[in-house]
């Protein structure tokens, strides 16, 4: 098993309002089988033993599905491996002697809580404006009453796989949340259940996205490139179409 010696350059920031800076940590004997986050665990255990403060970073499932983790590694959101969330990245992607820079998601709408941990509650506030079908518990009809063609079901699914990690925002030069919002809008555009609220949904979610301080989409495509779930920017085109249709129909962009 090959072991690596690395130099880590990590963003340290004590709290939201404190100034931050990059600090350098050497780390020896890193196994290629470690996940990236396990490598940081090892660094933290070492720091604690030395009486220093560990580097705070966020994580939960470590299986690439909860969307909690997210680091900008060598300038790329989630690091060098395509279609891979930070927790699923393994150290065999690096080599002995590498210097690795590690930074948090950077966006006005995602303030830093500490070190590499950011606050992404803006996403929840956008979802609250329409990221659902309004149906009370108990009022549903039989599940097979409305057939949905497999193609549409599959497309809806592709959009629905978003894990809300925020890499799309971190990668976008404008810090736009368009990929995130459009994935939700598309899912319900493909499904008949979503149709009654189609116009309201897109208008309200887009308006909340703007209020949260996310930037505009100007077609850089960086979001798609870093998305660990491969959400397509086609969804943004769908969202735009839905938005224009809705705005024309209601006579205004604001409901």
């Amino acid at each position, binding site marked *: 098993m090959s072991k690596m010696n690395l130099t880590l350059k990590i963003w340290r920031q004590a709290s939201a309002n404190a100034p931050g800076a990059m600090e350098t940590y050497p780390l020896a004997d890193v196994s290629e089988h*470690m996940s990236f986050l396990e490598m940081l665990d090892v660094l933290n255990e070492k720091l604690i033993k030395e009486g220093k403060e560990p580097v705070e970073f966020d994580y939960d499932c470590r299986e690439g599905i909860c969307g909690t983790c997210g680091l900008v590694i060598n300038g790329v959101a989630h690091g060098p491996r395509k279609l891979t969330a930070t927790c699923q990245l393994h150290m065999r992607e690096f080599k002995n002697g590498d210097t690795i820079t590690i930074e948090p998601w950077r966006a006005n709408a995602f303030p830093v809580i500490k070190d590499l941990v950011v606050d992404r509650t803006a996403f929840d506030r956008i979802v609250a404006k329409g990221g659902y079908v309004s149906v009370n518990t108990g009022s549903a009809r039989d599940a*097979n009453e409305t057939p*949905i063609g497999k193609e549409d079901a599959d497309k809806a699914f592709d959009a629905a*796989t978003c894990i809300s990690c925020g890499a799309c925002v971190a990668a976008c030069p404008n810090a736009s949340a368009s990929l995130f919002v459009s994935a939700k809008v598309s899912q319900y555009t493909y499904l008949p259940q979503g149709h009654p609220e189609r116009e309201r949904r897109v208008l309200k979610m887009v308006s909340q996205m703007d209020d949260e301080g996310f930037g505009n989409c100007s077609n850089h495509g960086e979001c798609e490139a870093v998305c660990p779930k491969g959400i397509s920017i086609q969804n943004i085109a769908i969202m735009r179409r839905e938005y224009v249709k809705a705005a024309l129909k209601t006579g205004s962009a604001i409901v």
Partner: protein
Amino acid sequence: MTISNLKEGADLKGVQPDGPLAQKWDSYKAKAKVVNPANKRKYTVLVIGTGLAGASAAASLAELGYKVKAFCIQDSPRRAHSIAAQGGINAAKNYQNDGDSIWRLFYDTIKGGDYRSRESNVHRLAQVSVSIIDQCVAQGVPFARDYGGLLSNRSFGGSLVSRTFYARGQTGQQLLLGAYGAMMRQVDAGKVELLTHREMLDLVTVDGQAKGVIIRNLKTGEMESYAGDAVLLCTGGYGNVYYLSTNAMNSNVTAAWRCHRRGAYFANPCFTQIHPTCIPVSGDYQSKLTLMSESLRNDGRVWVPKTQELAARVRKGEVKPSDIAEEDRDYYLERRYPTFGNLVPRDVASRNAKYVCDEGRGVGESGLAVYLDFAEAINRLGMSVVKDRYDNLFEMYERITGENPYHTPMRIFPAVHYTMGGLWVDYNLMTTVPGLYALGEANFSDHGANRLGASALMQGLADGYFVIPYTIGDYLAGAKPVDIKDTDSAPFREARAGIEAQVQKLMNVKGTKTVTEFHRELGLKMWDYVGMSRSEAGLKQILTEIPKLREEFWQNVRIPGTENGWNKNLEFALRVADFLELGELMARDALVREESCGGHFREEYQTEDGEALRNDEKYAYAAAWEFTGNPSEPVLHKEQLEFENVQLAQRSYK
């Protein structure tokens, strides 16, 4: 009784509605009290946890008009551990016309649980399973469909019909997003107040009834108090007591354990499920284990080298698995269980993997792995079929291990996956503390000694969407709404002071060992003695070791940083403190249960050919433990399980 200091209390009896099994739930609903619609908004319900159970409960109760406050550890409710469930959710829809029915789902669940669950609860679960699928589809959950546009099903272990609904390998994610969306709609409507980055650290009781919670704000470190008319614990399972498990890193027992300390009985803590197909441990830095779906056993063949010598050479890398001749391989599941072969239930498959590794025939660097081989399937079905069925799993395996399962067999090993035990609840899902309910994996109610695949998602949503909305009304209709300003009263002040003191005490230890070191040490002990197979000697041994480790923890733990603001090590320290008490209770529960059933395998109680030997005469009960102030001296209360509708039988998979 082999343990001398066992204290027993009075038997427990859950309220049971009248009538024959199939009519109990209807008869309950007909008689349950309801809160007048205009009064509902006067009641506040505190929902702790926003996984499938919590999010569905919060949404449904808010829709009814109750005021809801919902709390979770993560920054967003959608990150609850439910998000990671892969395989699917069961429901007795019988869309496949293959003979499924509510009765069959009920029966499979009771049998799968090795006859250690309560008939009435399980039957209700099977009944409402049907509405869950309707509800989720109406929400826009994109379940798999066939070309005709109708819903598609797959089969899971322990059942002869095809009743599992799924959304690729991401069923939990899609179901949770449905429930989360429903809850966020109520947030927008102002009926649910959402409090994320919050961890419940104590229950507040007034006159013995649950009336509030103490919460730590994980962003600021501040202690907050919330009063409510009922508290719903939807906080998931405690598999992380083993340190390594397939659970998310933040899954923990703290909320349940602190309620236990406040009077809620803890039932069947030793019933844990160990999943046979997980990616093995690769080093001592390992932080969690990754599940490889059970579906792989449909086509993969499990084997190890026939002899220890050959296995030793494999471990050193001198021989590659593909170079080992057929006659030098032992397909031990096919050999021992010719009927079920590689598809024996989870507990049987796990135990056998342990046996062959104990014999020195394990593979991988550590010797703690067996092969799951697809070479034969690729030959038989062709590469493209195997790709179609399993490509995403093979890819995940490759990402983690760096090995390609199309060319070399996967290495797998069992890992802790699910906890059947949890807070004891009655038919209403109420714990022994009035006003405190437990839903989802946090309770003990439906899975007995072993859970069937695809049944946890079903249970979480059943509890939240379709059970609690009825049973909570029956309780609240008889209670006066609390005064929200009560959080300044003595019970709240005292509870808050207690937790603040505990945090201070931990911060002041300033010892030399990290929280992770303690957690890992506890986990290893639990895995060795209260894991896949348990013995009287081993359990007695660990019962002497855990109290010592606990003592050392309180004298020598080192928590960096301060209690003000974000501090992951402090969060974990509070959880590990509780695991160190829970672990002891699990060992005691395992020691007292002198039989083997489901996931609980006692070496002394097995048939001649090594299968689990149940003892229905003495142990057909749920063990509900009462906290007495000393974690080493709990009192056992038994709920005798009455089987009026199914015949108890020995499981056989030969």
